[in-house]
């Protein structure tokens, strides 16, 4: 049974209002509390460690798998290793995410490794949302590691979102792209109060005609701190583009450390990074439409992080 609190956390991290359609596995405070498999998508427990294997049969199209994690006991430390095998020619949506409610003074932490192989010609959209809430002084900590290999002609579209309530995060994403594989990463991050966030994304363009695009947007408020290490390595005829854009406010600190490296004369790599406050012209324009200064600021941030 899901409590009201559980439902709220699930809605925040997986846009779930009800038990999802299709395959799912819901993990609460370290153990599975619900699972469904379909003819095409199987989920099995790992035997050697905590975690699951998600196996999508070749040719599976228009199916989804939801694997949210919720932590609602104070001071819980969780650690999983999940493996995804996205079969040849399939087209699926994978929704992961972690919601933490901590009312107490002890830290709650979820560390997870998600290891994907997107097989030949397969297309996967992967959405990962992080959310925290609760009044206690205990920190809500999330450290996800994501490893994605995209085989020939495969496509991975990745959406990483953390808007509220996570006090500390170190996010580490590694992607390996083979011939004609395509990667699109959209990252959205908001930090406030004393939150700290670090995001490291490393993309190796190994195959001919592989392409990668990373669009990272963040807002840092109050005393929060953000660090971005976005790195692309072009090892074949390939194209890569990183756009890293941050709005800085109050006493926040944002560091963007770009790196692009080419190991092939036909590698084309671009890195654009910008940090700045909200343009005053934008605020003036919205005020001239009748919005107050605060409303204007909110709208601008909301749009920027959408």
């Amino acid at each position, binding site marked *: 049974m899901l409590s009201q609190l559980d439902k709220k956390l699930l809605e925040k991290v997986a846009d779930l209002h009800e038990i999802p359609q299709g395959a799912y596995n819901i993990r609460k405070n370290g153990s599975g509390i619900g699972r469904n498999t379909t003819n095409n998508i199987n989920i099995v427990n790992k035997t050697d460690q905590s975690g699951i294997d998600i196996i999508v049969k070749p040719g599976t199209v228009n199916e989804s798998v939801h694997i949210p994690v919720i932590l609602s006991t104070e001071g819980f430390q969780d650690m999983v290793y999940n493996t995804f095998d996205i079969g040849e020619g399939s087209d699926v949506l994978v929704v992961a995410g972690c919601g933490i409610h901590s009312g107490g003074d002890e830290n709650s932490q979820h560390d997870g490794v998600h290891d994907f192989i997107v097989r030949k010609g397969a297309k996967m959209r992967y959405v990962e949302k992080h959310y925290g809430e609760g009044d206690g002084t205990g920190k809500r900590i999330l450290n996800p590691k994501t490893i994605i290999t995209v085989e020939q002609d495969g496509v991975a579209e990745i959406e990483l979102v953390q808007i509220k309530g996570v006090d500390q995060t170190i996010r580490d994403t590694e992607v390996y792209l083979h011939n004609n594989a395509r990667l699109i990463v959209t990252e959205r991050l908001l930090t406030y109060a004393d939150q700290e966030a670090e995001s490291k994304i490393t993309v190796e363009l190994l195959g001919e005609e592989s392409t990668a695009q990373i669009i990272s*947007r963040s807002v840092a408020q109050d005393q929060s701190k953000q660090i971005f290490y976005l790195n692309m390595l072009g090892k074949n005829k390939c194209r890569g583009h990183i756009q890293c854009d941050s709005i800085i406010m109050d006493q926040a600190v944002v560091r963007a450390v770009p790196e692009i490296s080419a190991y092939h004369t036909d590698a084309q790599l671009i890195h654009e990074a910008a940090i700045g406050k909200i343009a005053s*012209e934008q605020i003036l324009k*919205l*005020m*001239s*439409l009748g919005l107050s200064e605060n409303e204007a600021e909110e709208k601008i941030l909301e749009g*920027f*992080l*959408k």
Partner: protein
Amino acid sequence: MQEYNHSFNYRLQTNKWGEMEMLQIKDLSLHVEEGGSSVEILRNINLSFEEKKFYAITGPNGGGKSSLAKVIMGIVKPTQGSIYFNGEDITSLGITDRAKRKMGYAFQQPPRFKGFKIKDLLNLSFGEETSEQAICDVLLEVGLCAQDYLNRDVDASLSGGELKRIEIATVIARDLTLAIFDEPEAGIDLWSFQKLVETFKKMHKDKETIMIIISHQEKILRLADEVIIIADGTVKEQAKRDDIMPRIVQDLECGCNKTCDIGGSADAEPIG
């Protein structure tokens, strides 16, 4: 109530022809601090704008036209002087309050917004959730095909002319007593410009909005009831269109705006 009406009418003056003066600018000056010294941008401006009328403001670059528009909209605070709108002293009101009193301003250099779709920005302009049809209509008014533009971001992907037309649309979308457009023609192709001219006429006629258009285009000046010339931070002239147009056209034709040697001889050979 009685008293309120009384004081209200007391401020709302009529001019010598009995027309209502909706916007009055009195003894207005603007100075800005630059490198420790004070620079004069606007000097002793006195102007009045009457209800339902159409005004054009023109004059050389750097003359102070945009600064005046920004002072009217509340974006820049004047150093001296006062502004009355609809009988109320609005000198100390901020931008939002002036917007709520149905004043609008289309920026000369509009900002871009990352993550805002054109339809989001226009929704804000309408002030409330509005129908997609209404948004399409207003895009059409500025010569943009809604299908192609509704879901595009108001960011660097728009050309200068497209951005400018979106900016104009944000002002047309509103229900305004007074609308100021700052060089709406800049960067806009001939076909779209023709459409804009029609749109300004229509807005003025349908909504009875007081139009103030800062422009260098004869076509726009010809729409106006009155033309105001601003140069060196002050009003050089305010006159009925038909009185002022012949002189402006002559100035333009001989390529100078001070003394004109060629003057009079209309068939003089153009140089070059």
